């Protein structure tokens, strides 16, 4: 009876060790997989960020192109606008005195 109890304890101990090791390995693998998956996700986000930055840069350039004085002048000419012959200026001193 004493011998059988020892055998059972040994079996349970060995089983526990094996199961624990298995669980530890499983835990490690799960974490490693999660990190890898997160890495891929981060990489996808980084690529998305880079593309959005690129698109933004292209829009900034397009905006600069549309703001270009040469383009604005050409467009004004196309619309038949003419340059003002004179621009009336009010001296700042006169404005200040009137206040």
């Amino acid at each position: 009876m004493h011998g059988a109890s020892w055998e059972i304890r040994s079996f349970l101990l060995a089983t526990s060790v094996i199961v624990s090791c298995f669980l530890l390995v499983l835990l490690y693998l799960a974490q490693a997989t999660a990190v890898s998956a997160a890495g891929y996700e981060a990489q996808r986000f980084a690529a998305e960020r880079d593309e959005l930055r690129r698109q933004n840069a292209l829009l900034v350039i397009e905006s600069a192109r549309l703001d270009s004085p040469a383009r604005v002048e050409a467009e004004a000419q196309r619309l038949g606008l003419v340059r003002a012959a004179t621009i009336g200026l009010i001296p700042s001193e006169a404005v200040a005195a009137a206040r």
Partner: protein
Amino acid sequence: MTATISHRRLRVLFAFFAVASLVLSARLAYWQTVGRGELLSRATDQVHSDLAVAAQRGIIKDRSGAILATTVELRSLYAIPAQMKDRDGNDTFASVAAAIAPILGERPEVLRAAFASGAEWLFVRRRLPEDVAARIAALHIKGLGFEMEPKRLYPNGAVGAQVLGFVNDDGLGQYGVEGRYDDELAGTPGRLVVARDPANRELALGLRAAVAARNGDDLSLTIDLAVQNAAERELAAVVEREKAAGGAIVILDPKDGAVLAIASSPTYDPARVGSAKAEALRDRAISWTYEPGSTMKAITVAAALDKGVITPSTTYEDRGCATIGGRTLCNAGFRSYGQTNVTQILARSQNAGAVFVAGKLGAAELNAYVHAFGFGERTGVDLAVETGGIVRPLAEWYPVDLGTISFGQGLSVTPLQLASAYAAIANGGTLYRPYVVASRRDADGEHRTAPVAVRRVISQETSATLVTMLTATVDIGIANAAALKGFSVAGKTGTAQIPSDDGRYVDDAYISSFAGFVPAIDPRMVVVVVLERPQSKLLGTVPAMNTFKTIATDALRYARVQPDRP
């Protein structure tokens, strides 16, 4: 029948396994100890990639923050012809070429020939416009792919091309600011070492070593895009009207030498440098020299006033010509004016009068002042490919040179040098080094350029006197066409002959110019307009003055400068 195994066979089998085990163990031990490094290296090479990370080239902006040049990643279309197969394994070169040719604006047979050239991998078109790339990507054609490549873009087209320069296919800055500040703009590439999976994706776990790229510095220029645009527009117009061989316009802020605009004709589009003529790449404002003609008289008079050998009211008897060094030098049209004072010499642009003033001054002093005003040496402007012009050493002067140089013949200058010298007259007598980059921004912050006062050339009093005389030249003299309503203008015209290869002057061809500043008191800008071989010939200064007038009107209006005259 009972099968028996002989003991001898068992021993041989045992011995074989024993030896095999020993050999394998030894081999295993070798790879785990001595050969470990090699094995590790081979395994590492399979999964690691070592890439150079390109640095972003810096942005160039004008003084108001408008983008003049920037870099973006554009998609380049490549082809792997071996992958262009249908389900039966036949080539699809023709159908692929037919599908993308209209989008690329190319003939299908050209593309088909490229696919069939036998190349394993080839660029079909590099740095495509975004809409074109998107249309091709939407076709999802097997065997076509995109790779990002940096492209320098200039949103204002050809405006400012001569100041900016361009970036060649190797990514190197050429000419202008791009050339002069290439090291600062380019930045330093980084390095990225990572482990990758078979799909070429970076692994989160594994070796990762990175040296970040240092992006290029951003530059803010002194250039004012609105003024630059006006200068280029007016230069192109006058060159076309006058059928001139070329021309240049320089606009400076006389207070510190900041360059507001530089225009040069012929010019080029930085986006199409490949099709530009070599002459168009030369910035005539800094890389081209000419004899300045009568614009130089202001320098001669400034020197003589500063040395105290004349005053504005000093008079002489003008007989139309002056003899010096055995040579006779005459006024334009051989006109004689009789009793003339120095103010009238400038107002009428009398060559004989300039010779008279130079005679009072002497060759050594004139030579010293010409150099002091910055002629004969580079201004030091921060643009690539500047030339210094020619002022012969005093020891090489013939006696007649004192006379010819006094009215701008026998020396050569750049338009920028002349603008710089007039800026010194305008600002009270200090010669500033012209500069284009107002500030540079890097990771440490903004570094502003401090204006450099090269030297004091003339006294404040001389400057004030000369400004009055040059204002009279515009108000009542030869430069009256440059007069602006509401603003005082000081300036001087110049008509110069063109030296030919045989040492004589070219017949009936001239370089016409106007150098002036506005308002004459507390000036906001110095403008030099130079036209090469205008069809108006001797009257070429008139279109030069008209060009000055239009640009000055625009620039003053844009800068909201209050008129200083009723």
